[in-house]
């Protein structure tokens, strides 16, 4: 089995689930070593978080050193071995008080793995601001499980108000960890909007405490990545009777998977999918025209190889797109999360007598779809000629242009990357 410790696990998923509330502030009860990386990510995952513009917003020289350690997100109680033995209740109280004064809509408190072993009582701190206390993330679990645990805990702290008046849909299963999630949300909302379906909010990504309170007003919850959203959707169904829709074709990436996703949603709310499908058809035409030109140059991707290392719902959609639409052949697939999707697609290729390995990082391939770190590492190692990031971290630190990871634009961006690798990089000429 491939080893991939670069990918986020449940602790990070949990923290990002809490950081997904735009006006929340989360405390890590643990050492600084557990804080720096997630705090850096939490900053970078929001392109436009309020209060992050201009020199004053991130002035390292004026950020409080204690607890924040010059990072504006995820202050921590900087436990060390002494506190692991003696406990650190007083420090937690002090930090809670400071965070409380900052006036967030929600406060999260999460034990680091080490802190969870000492039995610190997180219920000893609290005040008027709704507070989510999480004793520990599932140790060594998946990012999706941690993320959903966080959102479910948030719903306990801020129970959505019941309402009979339902309107629009909520997206669920998209987290701030997902590559360019803001653009993806806009892209998917745009497509559904063409069908007259309004997207109210994304449960778990960029929603505010006001959004949380109102989140029982959707007529349907639309699952984007089931690994990150099914449990949340089920909870809304059980508690508020809101049904949810899960596409059988995985994430909405690739023309076929995207169309299935659109149709699934429209069927559930009895809307006409034609406008969105018409838009997708335009994309198909562009793609087909491009491929026709490449055909003239004998540069079609048919028969070229690909590997995918990504969450299951994404892996399924991408693998089917590259094989069914472009005729590329898989050589290795691996999903650290949502493994049932990986199994489904393996069965698909097994039925076609295509052997597929399970180590995309070390299997020679023309094209690797994963996150940018793994793509670069594979290119440096020489196991991949080209690649494309569909998951965080992405290829760019900054982008002013929209770059959705899913939807029609996401599909066309993936297509561009594949075709440019095929056209430009070949193992023999």
């Amino acid at each position, binding site marked *: 089995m491939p080893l991939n410790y670069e990918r986020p696990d449940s602790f990070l998923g949990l923290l990002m689930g809490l950081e997904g509330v735009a006006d929340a502030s989360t405390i890590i009860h643990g050492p600084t070593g557990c804080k720096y990386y997630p705090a850096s990510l939490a900053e970078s995952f929001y392109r436009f978080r309020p209060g992050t513009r201009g020199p004053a917003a991130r002035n390292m*020289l004026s950020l409080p050193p204690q607890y924040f350690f010059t990072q504006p997100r995820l202050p921590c109680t900087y436990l060390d071995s002494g506190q692991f033995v003696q406990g650190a209740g007083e420090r937690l109280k002090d930090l809670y008080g400071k965070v409380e004064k900052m006036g967030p809509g929600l406060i999260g408190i999460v034990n680091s793995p080490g802190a969870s*072993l000492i039995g610190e009582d997180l219920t000893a701190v609290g005040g008027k601001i709704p507070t989510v206390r999480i004793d520990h993330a599932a140790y060594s679990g998946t990012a999706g499980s941690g993320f959903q645990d966080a959102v479910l805990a948030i719903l306990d702290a801020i129970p959505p108000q019941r309402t009979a008046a339902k309107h629009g849909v909520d997206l669920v299963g998209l987290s701030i960890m997902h590559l360019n999630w803001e653009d993806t949300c806009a892209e998917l909302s745009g497509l559904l909007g063409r069908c007259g379906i309004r997207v109210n909010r994304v449960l778990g990504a960029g929603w505010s405490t006001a959004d949380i309170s109102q989140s029982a007003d959707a007529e349907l919850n639309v699952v984007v990545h089931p690994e990150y959203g099914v449990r949340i959707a089920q909870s809304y169904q059980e508690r508020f009777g809101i049904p949810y829709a899960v596409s059988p074709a995985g994430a909405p990436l690739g023309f076929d998977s995207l169309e299935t996703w659109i149709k699934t949603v429209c069927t559930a709310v009895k809307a006409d999918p034609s406008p969105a499908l018409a838009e997708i058809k335009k994309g198909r035409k562009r793609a087909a025209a491009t491929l026709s030109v490449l055909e003239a140059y004998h540069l079609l991707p048919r028969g070229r190889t690909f590997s995918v290392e990504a969450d299951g719902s994404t892996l399924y959609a991408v693998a089917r797109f590259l094989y069914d639409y472009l005729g590329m052949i898989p050589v290795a697939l691996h999903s650290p999360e949502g493994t049932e999707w990986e199994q489904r697609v393996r069965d698909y290729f097994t039925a076609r007598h295509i052997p597929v390995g399970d180590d995309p990082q070390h299997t020679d391939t023309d094209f690797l779809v994963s996150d940018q770190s793994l793509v670069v590492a594979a290119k440096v190692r020489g196991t991949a000629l080209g690649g494309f990031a569909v998951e965080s971290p992405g290829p760019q630190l900054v982008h002013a242009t929209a770059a959705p990871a899913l939807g029609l634009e996401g599909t066309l961006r993936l297509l561009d990357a594949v075709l440019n690798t095929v056209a430009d990089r070949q193992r023999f000429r």
Partner: protein
Amino acid sequence: MARKIAIYGKGGIGKSTISSNLTAALSDRGIKVMQIGCDPKHDSTRALIGGKVQQTVLDYLRNTKPDARRLGDIVAVGYKGCLCVEAGGPEPGVGCAGRGIISAFELLDSLGVGTVPLDLTLYDVLGDVVCGGFAVPLRNDNADTVYIVTSGEFMSIYAANNILRGTANYNPDRIGGIIFNSRGDPEEEGRVEAFAKAVGIPIIARFARSNLFMAAEKEGKTFVELYPDSAIADSFRELAAAVLKGQRYAAHFLTEGELESLILGRKTPIVPLAKLAEVQAAAAAKQRPYSARTTAFGAPLNGCAFSGACSVCSSVSGLTVLMHGPRSCAEYTVQLDANCTRGACQRGYESMPSFADPDVHSTDMKEDTMIFGGTKPLGALLEGQIGRGRRDFAIVTACPPGIIGDDVRSLAENTVRAHPGVKIAVLDEDGNAAGDFMQGVIDAGVGLVRTFAAPSAKDPESVNLIGTKTMSSSCRSDVQAITDLLTSLGLRMNCCLPGISSLDDIRGITRAAVNLKINPDVFTDRLCVFLHDEYGLETLAAPVRGGLAGTCAWLNDLAARFGREKEAAALEEKLKQQFAALMTEPRARLAGKTCCIISVNRDVKWIAETAAAAGLRTVGAWVENRPDYIDGLDVADDVPGFVPVEPSENAWVLQEIDRLHPDLLLTPVTAAVDPHIYQSKLPLNPPAGPFAGRLLAEDWLRGMLAPAEEGWRTDAAEL
């Protein structure tokens, strides 16, 4: 409303016997009781279920998949329909029983124990509240009443007093009473009564010593069941009545001195200072000799030693790294490697080759490993890698294995004995128990050399480079620049420490004639001290520093060591001419302009030298006093004009900059000053090489040529 009570008391005092008999007495009255044993020994409820042993909650947690778990699998029905649960726990000496209690309670809660119709839940808790986990029944949402079992022995009363102290941390007004369980000492009742009076809590039940308890235990029954007509059984019924009545008292407790005076009639003298000094002297000898820095008591640790050690180990090709901890610890560390590779590729510099494919493995500790101990999974991982042909290992531990006491060293020793040819560097950092990130870097450097260095014939013209920062974007280019300069003097690079090298280089580290420091930092210093202490390797006084003056200083020092003064003099002259030529254009454009400099790094000579060579007039220069960097480098001596400031003075510094209003501000981070002051970014890590400053000057030149205010700021004003 259903009640919840907890029975506490010193280990072996008879809590489980009291608890199970109380449950029986309550059940006789038709009270629906659930008794939960909170002790790894899992013997609390045996007498209620005919002496049988039931599956513990924690074993169930370990062996049963989440979607297959059912409450009924871990609840036994006992005497007169009472319900029995055993939390369980790890074997003695391994794992974390306190964590186990927390996990057991969480599992019971998640399986819906709160929905079972009960009149009373009874928690029978391990003897001493030794950590937060065992206090879970005391928490506000658990036991509403706490009963304390004690005999008249001093240590039992001491434990009872501790329990009162622990309860006072939560809701103190819920002590139900003291249950006196006699040992048969005729005077003990008096002591218990004195204690009860002193703390204001009554004795609500008294049990005489009786051999019949043993008889009942042999039968697998409670006393109440086996001897229902006995006086002792009556006492249990009275206790049951008192519990149902539910009277509660505040948890007052005595100081140690008061307790000793009350019970023992004496005060224990404080150990004279002289004796403590002996203990401290002995302890000092065992302290870690190569500490990252002298940490002021309570000063926060920056990062963790686990991460620091792993970052070094993963840069060494030929080494297999086993990370013992939860996956999140592995992720946080390995992403450093991945980020380096990605950053290097995207920004056009070289990173560590091994970062692109680190040979790292994690034990991915899960909940059951936390509870039951992680040495076995670590052993299995190690054996698996040996089976794949790996021979050279580093094992690094995160926080949890340290907290639960995994004995990694013994595992490593046994493995090495069983597999000749295998070498294991054990870096028991235990997260940040060993210290901060830098401590981990030092420990890895020390540990890898101690484990893998082999005696080698000296290479009289070679040099070790000590202090490489593998995460730095300039690491490889710096090493190359230094290597080129060494070559100019007819010398060779032997080994880089702590990172970059292959394991073969580390094996041959003692070959070098001398060490050369790069990044004159605390960790560099400590590694050099170590190499001197254990291998007699000397270190040159002048470290590699960036900038012209810094480069000439170390070149001359190196040349003197190797008798290459002539070559060094010629090289220095050449470098000076090159630098002067490179700074011609900046000087032409920048002469007379003013600048301020903020640095968070005390190695500022190269910046000051570049600013001067560019003709800039420095009107203000400050160095933030952050303790992590360059111990022993006095900025005021090194570069006159730089003022050390504390982080708390930063606001004042920014005000000064606004007042001085320089043309240029050199700063490592964006400063909230007048936006018309051009801010040029200073790297946090000073590069090696004589011309490092020239690249800075490029940015100054271009920045000064740009419009006074860029067009986007007008758009930004409307946001």
